[in-house]
C-alpha cells in the first residue's frame, strides 16, 4: 500500500500522507514525494495529513526537504497525535501547521434553534454548536470567530467562541450556551421595558465605542463606506456624488470598535447584563457609521414599507422610531431638537447610501419594488446633501 498520493493544479500541488511513516518506509515515501514534486513546476505546496497517523524523524526529514524545494509548504488537517510530534520537534514554529477540525456528532442532540444558514444544537450543559448548511462557509465562520475572539479579549461582553468542528460534511461553530433573552423578545413580552432596553443598549454601545483597537485589527468602516459611495458614482448627479464622497473622505480616521449591525435582536440579557451577539460585522471607525446602521435597522429599511421592521425586529414602526429617538437622546445626552436632527441627517445620509447600493446590487432596477426603493434613496440623498456639511458630531 502506498503512503503517498498527490493532486496537482497549475503551480499548486497537494500531497497526501497516509498511515505510518517511519524509517522502514521513508525511502519509498521520499521517492514518491519526489515523483510528485517533479511532475510539474510548483510554487505552492500543501501537505494534507488527514490520514496520517504517525511520523518518525525519517518522515519529518522528507517534509524538510520538500519545504527546501517549495518554501511555501503548509501542513493541513493534522490530527492531534501528529500535531504533538510536530510541536515538540519545533515544526509548528518553522512552517504553517493547521490542526484537523475536531469531528463531533449531533445525533440525538436537542435542536434549540434554526436559521437561514443552519441549525443550532445543544451538545452539553454549557455548549451549543451552530451547524452551517453551506459547506463552503468555512472562511466566513473563521472570520466571525476571530472578530468575536478579539472583541471578547478586549472586554466586550459576548459569548465565548470555542472551536470550529466538522459535523458530517458540514462545518460547525461551537459557542458557550447563553441563558439569555434578546432585547427584541423582552420588548415583545413587556412593552413597558422600552426605556430600560434603550438604557442598557446605549450603555453597551458606549462601551463598544470606547474600545480602542490597533490599526488592522478589524476592517476599517470608512474604507467600506467609501466603497459604497464609489459604487453609486454613475447613479447620482455629479455634484451630489462629489459632495457625498468628500463628506465620507473627510471623516476622521478612528480606531474604536463599531458593531456594525446593532439592534435589539443582537443584544441579549443574561442575569441583568447585556451581551452582544452576531459579531461578523465588527469593524472600527468613527461612530457616525454605527448610527447609520442603527438608523437603517429602525427606520431606513422601513422607509417605504413600514411593515418591514415588524418582520425584521417584531416591533411596530412607531416603537422602532421611539427606540431610535431615545437612543440618540441618551447617547448624545441632549434634548436639543436641532442637534438631534443634525445627527440624524448624518446617519441617514450614510444609511440611504448603503440601501441604494444594496438595492442596485440586488438587481433592483429590474423589479418594481427595487426601482421604487432606489428612487426613494435618490430623493432622500438629494434632500439631505444640501443640509449636511460634515459627518462628524
Amino acid at each position, binding site marked *: 500500500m502506498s503512503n503517498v498520493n498527490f493532486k496537482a493544479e497549475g503551480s499548486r500541488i497537494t500531497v497526501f500522507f497516509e498511515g505510518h511513516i517511519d524509517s522502514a518506509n521513508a525511502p519509498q515515501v521520499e521517492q514518491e514525494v519526489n515523483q510528485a514534486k517533479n511532475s510539474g513546476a510548483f510554487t505552492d505546496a500543501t501537505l494534507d495529513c488527514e490520514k496520517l497517523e504517525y511520523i518518525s524523524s525519517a518522515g519529518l526529514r522528507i517534509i524538510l526537504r520538500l519545504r527546501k524545494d517549495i518554501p511555501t509548504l503548509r501542513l493541513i488537517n493534522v490530527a492531534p497525535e501528529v500535531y504533538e510530534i510536530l510541536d515538540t520537534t519545533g515544526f509548528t514554529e518553522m512552517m504553517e501547521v493547521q490542526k484537523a477540525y475536531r469531528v463531533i456528532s449531533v445525533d440525538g442532540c436537542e435542536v434549540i434553534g434554526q436559521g437561514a444558514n443552519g441549525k443550532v444544537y445543544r451538545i452539553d450543559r454549557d455548549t451549543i454548536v451552530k451547524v452551517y448548511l453551506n459547506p463552503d462557509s468555512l472562511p466566513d465562520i473563521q472570520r466571525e470567530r476571530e472578530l468575536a475572539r478579539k472583541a471578547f*479579549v478586549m472586554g466586550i461582553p459576548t459569548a*465565548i467562541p470555542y472551536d470550529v468542528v466538522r459535523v458530517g460534511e458540514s462545518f460547525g461553530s461551537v459557542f458557550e450556551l447563553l441563558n439569555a433573552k434578546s432585547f427584541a423578545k423582552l420588548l415583545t413580552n413587556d412593552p413597558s421595558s422600552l426605556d430600560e432596553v434603550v438604557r442598557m443598549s446605549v450603555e453597551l454601545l458606549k462601551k463598544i465605542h470606547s474600545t480602542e483597537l490597533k490599526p488592522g485589527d478589524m476592517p476599517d468602516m470608512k474604507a467600506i463606506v467609501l466603497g459604497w459611495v464609489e459604487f453609486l458614482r454613475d447613479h447620482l448627479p455629479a455634484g451630489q456624488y462629489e459632495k457625498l464622497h468628500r463628506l465620507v473622505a473627510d471623516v476622521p480616521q478612528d480606531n474604536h470598535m463599531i458593531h456594525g449591525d446593532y439592534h435589539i435582536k443582537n443584544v441579549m440579557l443574561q442575569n441583568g447584563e447585556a451581551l452582544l451577539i452576531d459579531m461578523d460585522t465588527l469593524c472600527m471607525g468613527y461612530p457616525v457609521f454605527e448610527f447609520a446602521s442603527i438608523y437603517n435597522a429602525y427606520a431606513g429599511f422601513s422607509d417605504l414599507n413600514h411593515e418591514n421592521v415588524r418582520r425584521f425586529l417584531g416591533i411596530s414602526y412607531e416603537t422602532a422610531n421611539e427606540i431610535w429617538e431615545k437612543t440618540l437622546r441618551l447617547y448624545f445626552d441632549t434634548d436639543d431638537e436641532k442637534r438631534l436632527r443634525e445627527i440624524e441627517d448624518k446617519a441617514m445620509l450614510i444609511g440611504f447610501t448603503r440601501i441604494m447600493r444594496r438595492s442596485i446590487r440586488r438587481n433592483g432596477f429590474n423589479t418594481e419594488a427595487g426601482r421604487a426603493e432606489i428612487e426613494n434613496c435618490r430623493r432622500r440623498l438629494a434632500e439631505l446633501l444640501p443640509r449636511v456639511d460634515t459627518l462628524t458630531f
Partner: protein
Amino acid sequence: MTITKTQQGSSLNIALEGRLDTITAPELEAELKNSLDGVAGLTLDLKGLSYISSAGLRVLLCAQKTMNKQGEMIIKNVNETISEIFMITGFCDILTIE
C-alpha cells in the same frame, strides 16, 4: 463555587473551586473588588476549578487590568479543560499562567 482567600502582607492568594459561570462570576467579582486594595501580588489558584464561562473570563480580565496598575497577577494549577479554554479564547496571551 468556593472562594478561599489567604493573605500575607501585600500578597493575596485566591483558590477557586467548582464552576466559575454566569451565576458565580459576580461573587468573585465582588470579592476581588473588596480585596485588591494594596495588593501587589495576586495569585489565582484554579486547581479545583471545573468550568469557566465567558462571564468568568471577563472577571479574570478585569482583575488582570487592575493588577497591571498595581503589581502582578499569576494564575496557577490550570487543568486541561480550563487550559483549553484559555488557548481557544486567546486568554493565554493576556494572562500569566504558571
